[in-house]
C-alpha cells in the first residue's frame, strides 16, 4: 500500500486548518477509506486516478434529481482541469469521510450539498492537480511555473512540447504526499463554475439504463410486499396465510415487527397473494385519530395561551392602529416521489448488504444494524439513484422492513411498496395552524406583529431517530428520545421562516405551541418554510391591502435598503412587468428566504368560469455563486411545480387513524397540461453558493393565493386552496 495510514492521517491533519478537504475521521476506530486499487493515486477519500487516467469521484450526497452529481463533478473538474464528462462517479459508501461537515451525518437535506462542499470539492480537485504537477516536475526537471494542467494532462506552459497524461503521472504521484491548502482559482478564471450546462447523468436517464433502487436484483433475489397496519400504532394480532401460500410463485408468508410479509418470485405474484392474506391488527389507541379532531385541537390551542416564545421584539408603534387578525390552516402532505419506496437486502456472514436509494446512508445503516443486532460496520449500504426524494428518503423505514424480512427468509429479497403503501405510510408534512395579528396605522405603519403557530413538532419524532445513528451504539434510546423532546418545545422545523420575518415592523412576536399527533412526520421539501411562507406572505398581502398600498411597495417599505429580499423583489417585479398585467391577468407576489437563499415569485393567473387558471410564474433567486445555471433554473421551476401541486390539490386526511387517500387519483399532482409558463431570473452574485433544492418552493403558494385575491377579492386562508 502506497498511501500509508500515517501518511493519510498526516494529509488529513495538514488539511485540518482552513481547508478541511472533507475529512472527518469520526472515531479513532474508523479505518481510512481506500477505494480502488493499490496502484491508483488516491490523494483523498473522494478521488482516485488510475494508471489509465480514469478519474473516479465518490459522491457523498444522494442524487435525487437536484443535480448534485453534475454540481460536484463540475467543482472537481474546475480545479482538476478536466472535462466534467470525463469524470466517473460512484455513490459513496458509508464512511466518516463522507459525513456532511455541518450535520455530522451522511445525509442529504437542507439544500446544503453545494453550500457545504463548494470549497471542499474544489480543494479535492486542486490538491490532486498540484500533486500531479509535482510528479511532473520530478519527471521532467521543470519548475512549477513552467508547467500547467490542461484537459487531463500536465503540459509545459511555454510551448506545450511536454505533455504527460495524468495516468502516466500516477505511479509517481501516488508516492508523494498530497499537496494541500492550494489557492483556488479566482472567479475570473473559472471556466466551468457558473457555465457548465450538461447534466452528466442525462444519458443514462434517457435510455433506461440509470439504476434506481427498485431496479436492483442480486442473484437469486425474491420479491416481498408487506401488509402494514392501516393505522400507525397497530401491530399484527393474527393472520391466516393458507390461501395465499397456495398461490403460484409464493415462497413464504410470515409476520415481522412491521406487518405480514408475502414473498414470491416477482412483484405481481406477491401482490396477488397478499390480497388473499386475512390479517388482523391490534386496535388503535385512543387519541387524535381524525383530521377533524386534529383541526379542532389546533384551533383550541390557538384560542389558549400556552405558547413558547421563539422571537420577542417589543414594539414602539402606536396602540391605536386598526387591529388586523387572521387564521390560516395547512394540511398533512405526502411526498409521493415517482419511485415507490423499496429496498433490497442480502444477509452476509457478519451482517448484511442493502441496496437502496436513500438520502441518509448512515441512518439506513444504523436501522439495518439494529434490526439484526449487529455492529454498524457489519452493514454495507449500496446507494442508488433516487426516483425522487423530497425528504421522504431521509427515513429508513423501508430499510428496517426489508432487513427484518431477510432476517427471517435468509435469502436475498427486495421489498417493493405499492403507491398505496407510499401514500398511506409516509412521514408526512404536518398539518399546522397559525394566527397573526398586527396593527396598521393611518399612514400604513405596521406594529405589534404577533404570530402564533400550532402544530406537531417534526423534530420530536425525527431527531431521536437521526441522533440514534449519529451517536455510539451504546447510547440508550431513552437518551435520544429525551433530546427530541427538549428540541420539540421551540422546534425550529415548525417556526423556521416565521421566526426570521424580514420586515422591520415595530414589534415582532413569534410563538409556538407543540401539539403532538399520532402520525409519522418528516421533512417535506422546504420543511417549515412550506407553511410559514404561506401564512406570513399571505398576511403581509392582507396588511398591504389594508394599508392601501401596492403589495410590492408595501414590502419594499419594510425591507432595509440592502436587504437581499429587496433585490429579488425588484428583479421579479421587472421580469413580470409587475402592476401592468395584461387585460384579464392578475398577479400575486411573495418573497421568502430559506436555506441561505432568497426567492421572490409572481404568479399570474386568469379566470376561467370564475376559477383561477395558472398562466405564468416569474421567479428571481439569489443563491450566491451559481455552479450550473440550468440546474438552478430547473430547481426553481421544480420547486414551484411541487408547491403548486400542494397548493391546488395536496391534502392527506385521516379517518379512524388511517389515511384516506391512496394514489394519484385522490392525491393529485400537477400535470403537463396544467403547468404555467415560467421565467427564472438568476441574480448575479459572487457570494459563496447557497441552497437551491428547496428555496423555490415556499413563495409559490402565497403568491398564488395573493393572485387569487387580486382577481376575486377572496382571501385564501387554507391550503389546499378552496376553489368552489
Amino acid at each position, binding site marked *: 500500500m502506497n498511501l500509508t495510514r500515517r501518511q493519510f492521517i498526516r494529509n488529513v491533519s495538514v488539511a485540518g486548518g482552513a481547508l478541511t478537504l472533507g475529512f472527518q475521521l469520526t472515531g479513532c476506530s474508523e479505518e481510512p477509506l481506500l477505494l480502488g486499487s493499490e496502484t491508483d493515486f488516491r490523494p483523498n477519500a473522494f478521488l482516485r486516478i488510475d494508471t489509465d487516467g480514469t478519474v473516479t469521484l465518490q459522491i457523498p450526497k444522494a442524487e435525487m*434529481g437536484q443535480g448534485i452529481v453534475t454540481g460536484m463533478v463540475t467543482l472537481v473538474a474546475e480545479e482538476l482541469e478536466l472535462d466534467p464528462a470525463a469524470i466517473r462517479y460512484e455513490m459513496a459508501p458509508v464512511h466518516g469521510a463522507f459525513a456532511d461537515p455541518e450535520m455530522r451525518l451522511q445525509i442529504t437535506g437542507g439544500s446544503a450539498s453545494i453550500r457545504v462542499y463548494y470549497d471542499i470539492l474544489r480543494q479535492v480537485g486542486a490538491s490532486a492537480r498540484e500533486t500531479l504537477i509535482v510528479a511532473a516536475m520530478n519527471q521532467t526537471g521543470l519548475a512549477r511555473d513552467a508547467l500547467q494542467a490542461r484537459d487531463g494532462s500536465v503540459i509545459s506552459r511555454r510551448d506545450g512540447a511536454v505533455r504527460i497524461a495524468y495516468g502516466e503521472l500516477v505511479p509517481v504521484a501516488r508516492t508523494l504526499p498530497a499537496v494541500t491548502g492550494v489557492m483556488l482559482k479566482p472567479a475570473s478564471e473559472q471556466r466551468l463554475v457558473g457555465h457548465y450546462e450538461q447534466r452528466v447523468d*442525462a444519458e443514462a436517464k434517457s*435510455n*433506461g439504463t440509470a439504476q434506481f433502487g427498485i431496479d436492483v436484483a442480486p442473484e437469486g433475489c425474491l420479491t416481498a410486499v408487506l401488509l402494514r397496519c392501516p393505522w400507525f400504532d397497530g401491530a399484527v394480532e393474527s393472520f391466516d396465510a393458507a390461501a395465499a401460500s397456495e398461490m403460484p410463485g409464493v415462497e413464504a408468508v410470515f409476520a415481522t415487527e412491521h406487518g405480514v410479509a408475502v414473498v414470491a418470485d416477482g412483484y405481481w405474484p406477491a401482490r396477488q397473494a397478499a390480497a388473499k392474506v386475512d390479517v388482523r391488527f391490534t386496535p388503535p389507541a385512543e387519541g387524535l385519530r381524525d383530521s377533524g379532531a386534529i383541526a379542532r385541537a389546533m384551533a383550541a390551542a390557538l384560542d389558549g395561551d400556552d405558547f413558547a416564545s421563539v422571537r420577542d421584539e417589543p414594539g414602539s408603534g402606536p396602540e391605536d392602529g386598526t387591529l388586523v387578525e387572521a387564521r390560516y390552516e395547512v394540511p398533512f402532505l405526502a411526498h409521493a416521489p*415517482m419511485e415507490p419506496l423499496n429496498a433490497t437486502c442480502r444477509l452476509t456472514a457478519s451482517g448484511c448488504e442493502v441496496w437502496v436509494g436513500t438520502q441518509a446512508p448512515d441512518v439506513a445503516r444504523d436501522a439495518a444494524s439494529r434490526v439484526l443486532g449487529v455492529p454498524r460496520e457489519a452493514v454495507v449500504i449500496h446507494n442508488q439513484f433516487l*426516483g425522487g426524494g423530497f425528504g421522504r428518503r431521509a427515513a429508513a423505514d423501508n430499510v428496517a422492513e426489508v432487513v427484518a424480512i431477510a432476517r427471517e427468509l435468509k435469502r436475498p429479497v427486495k421489498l417493493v411498496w405499492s403507491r398505496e403503501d407510499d401514500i398511506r405510510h409516509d412521514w408526512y408534512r404536518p398539518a399546522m395552524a397559525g394566527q397573526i395579528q398586527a396593527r396598521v396605522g393611518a399612514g400604513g405603519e405596521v406594529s405589534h406583529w404577533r404570530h402564533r403557530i400550532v402544530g406537531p413538532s417534526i423534530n420530536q419524532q425525527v431527531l431521536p431517530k437521526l441522533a440514534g445513528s449519529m451517536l455510539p451504539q451504546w447510547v440508550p434510546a431513552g437518551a435520544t428520545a429525551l433530546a427530541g423532546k427538549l428540541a420539540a418545545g421551540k422546534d425550529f422545523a415548525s417556526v423556521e421562516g416565521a421566526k426570521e420575518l424580514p420586515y422591520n415592523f415595530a414589534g415582532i412576536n413569534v410563538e409556538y405551541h407543540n401539539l403532538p399527533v399520532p402520525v409519522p412526520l418528516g421533512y417535506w421539501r422546504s420543511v417549515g418554510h412550506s407553511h410559514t411562507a404561506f401564512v406570513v406572505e399571505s398576511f403581509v398581502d392582507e396588511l398591504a391591502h389594508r394599508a392601501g398600498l401596492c403589495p410590492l411597495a408595501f414590502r419594499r417599505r419594510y425591507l432595509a435598503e440592502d436587504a437581499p429580499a429587496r433585490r429579488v423583489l425588484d428583479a421579479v417585479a421587472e421580469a413580470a412587468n409587475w402592476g401592468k398585467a395584461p387585460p384579464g391577468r392578475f398577479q400575486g407576489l411573495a418573497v421568502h428566504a430559506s436555506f441561505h437563499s432568497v426567492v421572490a415569485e409572481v404568479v399570474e393567473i386568469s379566470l376561467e368560469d370564475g376559477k383561477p387558471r395558472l398562466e405564468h410564474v416569474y421567479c428571481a433567486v439569489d443563491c450566491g455563486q451559481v455552479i450550473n445555471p440550468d440546474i438552478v433554473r430547473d430547481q426553481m421551476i421544480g420547486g414551484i411545480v411541487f408547491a403548486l401541486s400542494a397548493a391546488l390539490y395536496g391534502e392527506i386526511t385521516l379517518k379512524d387513524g388511517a389515511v384516506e387517500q391512496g394514489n394519484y387519483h385522490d392525491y393529485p399532482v400537477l400535470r403537463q397540461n396544467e*403547468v404555467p409558463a415560467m421565467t427564472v431570473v438568476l441574480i448575479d452574485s459572487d457570494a459563496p453558493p447557497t441552497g437551491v433544492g428547496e428555496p423555490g418552493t415556499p413563495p409559490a403558494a402565497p403568491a398564488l393565493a395573493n393572485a387569487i385575491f387580486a382577481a376575486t377579492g377572496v382571501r385564501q386562508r387554507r391550503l389546499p386552496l378552496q376553489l368552489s
Partner: protein
Amino acid sequence: MVAFTLNGGDVSLEIDPQTPLLWALRDNLGLTGTKFGCGMGLCGACTVHLDGAAVRSCSLPLAAVAGKAVTTIEGLGGEHPLQRAWVEHNVPQCGYCQSGQIMSAAALLAANPAPDEANIRQAMAGNLCRCGTYHKVQRAILSVAAVAHWEPAVEGEA
C-alpha cells in the same frame, strides 16, 4: 404460454397471462427501464408501445400482447432523436419518469410528426413528473418536431 415480439425479437413467457406486461418485462425479462409508479395507469411511468401505440404496461395483462409487437425504452436504442433531444435539453432530474415520458413522446411523434405546444401538453398529460420537468419535456419534443417538420424525408414517416 404467451408469445410476442419484444424490441424486434421473439419472446415467449410461461407465466400467468393475467400478469401485467410491466412486471413481465421487469421481473421475468429483466428489462428494468420501464418503471412502476402507480399500478393504476395514472402516472405513465410504465409507458411502452404496443404495435406502435403508447400503452400503460402496469394495467395491460400479458395476454393482451400475444402476437403483437412491444417496444420499450431499451428498444429505442439510445439514438432516437427524442433521446438525443432529452440529453441535449437536460430534461431528466431524478429521471424515474423519463422512460415513460420518452415513450409517450415517441408515440405522439409517430402519430403527429409536427405537434404544437397545445398538442404536446394534451398528449403528455398522462405522464406525471414530481420533479417538474414538464417544460423541458415540451421543449425537447418541440425541438424534434421541428426537425421532423423541416426534414420529413429522413425517417420516411411524414
